[in-house]
């Protein structure tokens, strides 16, 4: 059966409506969301309301967590003080706007969802803040999937959709310890694993302005990356009307987020 996976909605109602419409047109009713329903965008309540109305199974993203828990992430999440200041502004605005019911809903979301050997998370199994970028060290990427006991890991957070297959892996080791005086050599074969990043509905960073999501066929294992155009002007105007930083509208209309890309994407905030 086919199911759709969406992520990083970022309070962008026009984008979410367009993606849900596209999913409906594909005849898919099973949808999983990988978090970050809010943050940056101008319609946090409307987006959370729609996710609740459609009963979309969701896990919690880093923005959802921060709205509930207070700002947990340290400055390492931002590449500059200016970016951090803008992020804090968006955080405060979103926290003010969200209704108690919607805050309770975000607080109730799990950090991961498991379906047999498929795991759904926002960032990585380690942390909602960890970025699994497509060029991450292949062994480290495999470790994230393997440690989580999954065959396929669905994640978001990077806003860049991709499907990564890790296969034909092996590691040779030589061991010397105090109980054996001769070195012992062995080779370990690694299992094949897959990472699927669903990209971002509400704030794409893959080089285009279109929203992205993925369709997964759990029988064939095939994954299709989908791009959906939406009325960007509508969201940009709402950002400006809400008094949010204008750069949020600018980067939506350019499809790239130059200012907010972390320098060390593999860094995990421990705070």
């Amino acid at each position, binding site marked *: 059966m086919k199911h759709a996976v969406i992520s990083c909605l970022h309070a962008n109602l026009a984008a979410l409506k367009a993606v849900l419409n596209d999913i409906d047109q594909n005849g898919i009713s099973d949808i999983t969301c990988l978090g970050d329903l809010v943050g940056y965008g101008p319609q946090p309540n409307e987006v959370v309301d729609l996710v609740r109305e459609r009963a979309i199974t969701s896990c919690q993203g880093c923005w959802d967590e921060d709205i509930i828990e207070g700002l947990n992430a340290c400055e390492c999440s931002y590449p500059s003080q200016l970016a951090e200041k803008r992020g804090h502004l968006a955080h405060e605005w979103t926290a003010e706007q969200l209704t108690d019911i919607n805050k309770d809903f975000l607080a109730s979301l799990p950090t991961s969802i498991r379906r047999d050997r498929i795991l759904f998370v926002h960032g990585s199994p380690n942390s909602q803040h960890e970025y699994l970028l497509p060029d991450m060290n292949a062994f480290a990427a495999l*470790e994230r999937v393997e440690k989580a006991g999954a065959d396929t890991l669905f994640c978001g957070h990077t806003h860049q959709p991709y*499907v990564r297959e*890790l296969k034909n892996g092996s*590691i040779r080791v030589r061991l010397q310890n*105090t109980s054996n005086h001769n070195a012992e050599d062995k080779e370990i074969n690694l299992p094949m694993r897959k990472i699927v990043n669903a990209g971002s509905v509400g704030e794409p960073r893959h080089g*285009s302005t279109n929203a992205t999501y993925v369709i997964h066929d759990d029988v064939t294992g095939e994954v299709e990356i989908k791009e959906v155009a939406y009325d960007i002007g509508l969201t940009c105007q709402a950002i400006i009307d809400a008094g949010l930083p204008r750069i949020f509208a600018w980067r939506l209309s350019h499809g790239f987020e130059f200012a907010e890309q972390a320098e060390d994407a593999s860094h995990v905030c421990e705070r």
Partner: protein
Amino acid sequence: MIERWALVSGLKGDLETYELIQSELKKARGVTALFVLGDMIGPERNCDALLNRLQNPRRKELEPQCIYGWWEEQLLTEQGFRGEQKADTLRLNQGEEVVSALLNAVDPSHLKWLASLQFGFIELDCGLIHGSSADVGDNLTSETSPLILLDRLTRLAINRLFTAHSTKQFHLELTGGGIDSQVKDLNGQHQHQQKVSKQSIIGIGAGASYTIYDVGSDKTHFLTAGGQSNSKGKGFA
């Protein structure tokens, strides 16, 4: 010039063993640095004498460079140095009496010094950490999956990781291997093969079991204070 490091951990307040190691290091050739990779304290005995000595080394004695370990982390957490958390893992696994024993084993005057210690050192291309780059309590042994070991090395972009938490002495070298990575995105499909470069994880032991690392030759010597060399394996000692 020969440069060798001595690596010690898990003394848990045992000043006698520390003095024995120091006396052996005086006789050893080329040892220029002494790294104490945490667990200087523990609940079994009063640790004040050892902590005083580590902070005030004697003349002609190698000055210890210390980091904090799992037991220090438990004490600092319980004493409020890690926010609102308490030493719940310790309490859950070993009971309230062990938490009390730990608190009693260290005079509060040492807390400031203990809290000032770093998580680890990076020396040359080596990481010196009590557990690993993932956690102070990461229990790396020769049985740990090589995939996890490789991940711990990758996180710090180092070639050698000296670890202590398992208390074991071992030298596990990653000698080769590789993996195919195929990425499909909206721009198409890309294939890449990543190779395993030569890297090592070294368990340094604990208490009287300590390790000497020869920086120039990349050889490891496993020793026991007051005893013989534990390993002189080919390529390692």
